[in-house]
């Protein structure tokens, strides 16, 4: 049961490692994000205790989020170059395919997140090993959640141009209403429900909680810093946030496997070889 999943994961990683251009841009974009956003938003975080930790944690989570969402494009490539057919007629179940895709896209996303963390260490990010491990765990969680969402969207979109559009539509509001770049307190109250429904909000806050070493900070201050949330008197603490991400991850994954089971990939246009 595990063998086909492992095979798919391995294949996707081999493919990425061969794609020098993509590999380069993956790393380059991470670096670019890091530099640009740390300059742009530096003023916004002035006065915080760990400004670099605050910024970099936001950037890391955004990168993991974006990468996992985008990586689901792989499946569209497989559909358009015909390889999907090979998988579909193999004695492999659809959920195995879906899990393989999600895991490989998560691995790439987490890898990219870790690179940013490493780069960040040179720019003033201060974390110890335990924090690092917890952050990696959270990154995996985020990676799984959004790879599932990405795969779901990919099977709905079925075409790479559509998919790009859908991704933009989905990721733009999620990104800017999550507190990653713009603190949630700075966002108009009217958008509060969107913020609370946004899985990225909890991801960012839980991640920052760790990155900013806030274990000993009083609840009131956590709420003030946008790490904990006061929803009509109910306080969502970072641990609760983590649980929420897990729940959302499960929902997205179920949706994606379910959708994948029903999708009719045979009707998708494929490239034909030969001259006819």
């Amino acid at each position, binding site marked *: 049961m595990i063998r*086909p999943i492992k095979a798919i994961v391995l294949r996707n990683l*081999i493919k990425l490692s061969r794609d020098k251009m993509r590999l380069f841009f993956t790393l380059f974009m991470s670096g670019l994000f890091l530099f640009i956003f740390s300059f742009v938003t530096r003023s916004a975080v002035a006065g915080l205790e760990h400004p670099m930790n605050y910024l970099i944690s936001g950037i890391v989570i955004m990168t993991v989020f974006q990468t996992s969402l985008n990586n689901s494009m792989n499946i569209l490539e497989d559909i358009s*170059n015909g390889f999907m*057919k090979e998988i*579909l*007629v*193999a004695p*492999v179940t659809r959920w195995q395919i879906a899990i393989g895709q999600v895991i490989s896209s998560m691995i790439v996303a987490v890898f990219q997140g870790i690179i940013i963390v490493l780069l960040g260490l040179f720019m003033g990010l201060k974390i110890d090993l335990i924090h690092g491990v917890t952050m990696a765990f959270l990154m995996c969680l985020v990676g799984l959640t959004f790879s599932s969402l990405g795969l779901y969207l990919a099977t709905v979109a079925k075409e790479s141009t559509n998919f790009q559009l859908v991704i933009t539509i989905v990721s733009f509001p999620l990104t800017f209403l999550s507190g990653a770049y713009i603190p949630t307190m700075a966002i108009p109250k009217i958008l509060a429900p969107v913020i609370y429904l946004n899985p990225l909000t909890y991801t960012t806050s839980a991640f920052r909680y760790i990155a900013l070493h806030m274990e000993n900070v009083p609840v009131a201050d956590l709420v003030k810093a946008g790490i904990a949330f006061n929803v009509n008197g109910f306080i969502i603490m970072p641990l609760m946030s983590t649980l929420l991400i897990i729940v959302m991850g499960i929902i997205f994954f179920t949706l994606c496997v379910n959708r994948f089971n029903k999708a009719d990939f*045979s009707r998708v246009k494929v490239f034909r070889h*030969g001259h006819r």
Partner: protein
Amino acid sequence: MITNSIEVSNFTKKFGSFTAVDNISFNVEEGTIFAFLGPNGAGKSTTINTLCTIHDKTDGELRINGNDVTRQKDKVRNDIGIVFQESTLDGKLTVEENLKLHCDFYKVPKSEVKQRIDFVLELVDIVNWRKAPVNSLSGGMKRRAEIARGLVHFPKVLFLDEPTTGLDPQTRANVWDYIHKLQKQKNITIFLTTHYMEEAEICNKVAVIDHGKIVAHDTPYNLKKKFTSTTMKLKTSRQDSLQNYLDNSSIKYKPDNEQIVVYAPDVEKVLEIISCFKESIEDIEINKGTLNDVFIAITGKEIRE
């Protein structure tokens, strides 16, 4: 005892209001080569795709080695190998990686993987290209790699959807060598679709399909016997008496410049005419009917290419 590898009865497939395959039935015996012959859009690929569990049928019953293709998909998938019309290899991986991946999907015992890959690469003669990325291969090489992959899990039934389309004649001949080699070595059943008549000739059974219906189904020999005549072009100094002779024995013919084209119903008649006119025959050309003639006789049109 004859066992059937493929059993299809009253199979219908509709896409919306369009009927791609219309109530067809046929069986394929184990260890034989069976060809679906028909123009593009006749319903060949639809039938293959349904047998391969990609499409669901609209109606009817389809079985491979006794397993129902809709209800026992996994068993069916384990038993079959498919070479699609279009390339379905992963272009960024090497030939070997593609084959390994396939072995993982089909649960080939890990200890056998290497040995099997060696075997199939040998069979299609691309051992030297095993480390080459698929995208760097020529069309013919890709096709061979594709066939190798379809075989590496030792399927009991092999589906070939237009296996030689787009290949040069030399490679086509090679591909056919492999198919025969394979069939002998492994006694597998081969189901193929083609619109090349020469390819259908070498199959054990041929079904002619047009507009989603099977219009004829027999051995190539019987089909030709039933639907075609032997054409004989004769040039003789006694044209008139030949024409008289043909009229009297009511054999169809057509004068063509100095020659007469005779449509002989069987070999006896051919020999009879030759022996009667052997002193006066200046030139002779005899052509057996081809499957193309069969196709024209049955459907009233040339196969569309």
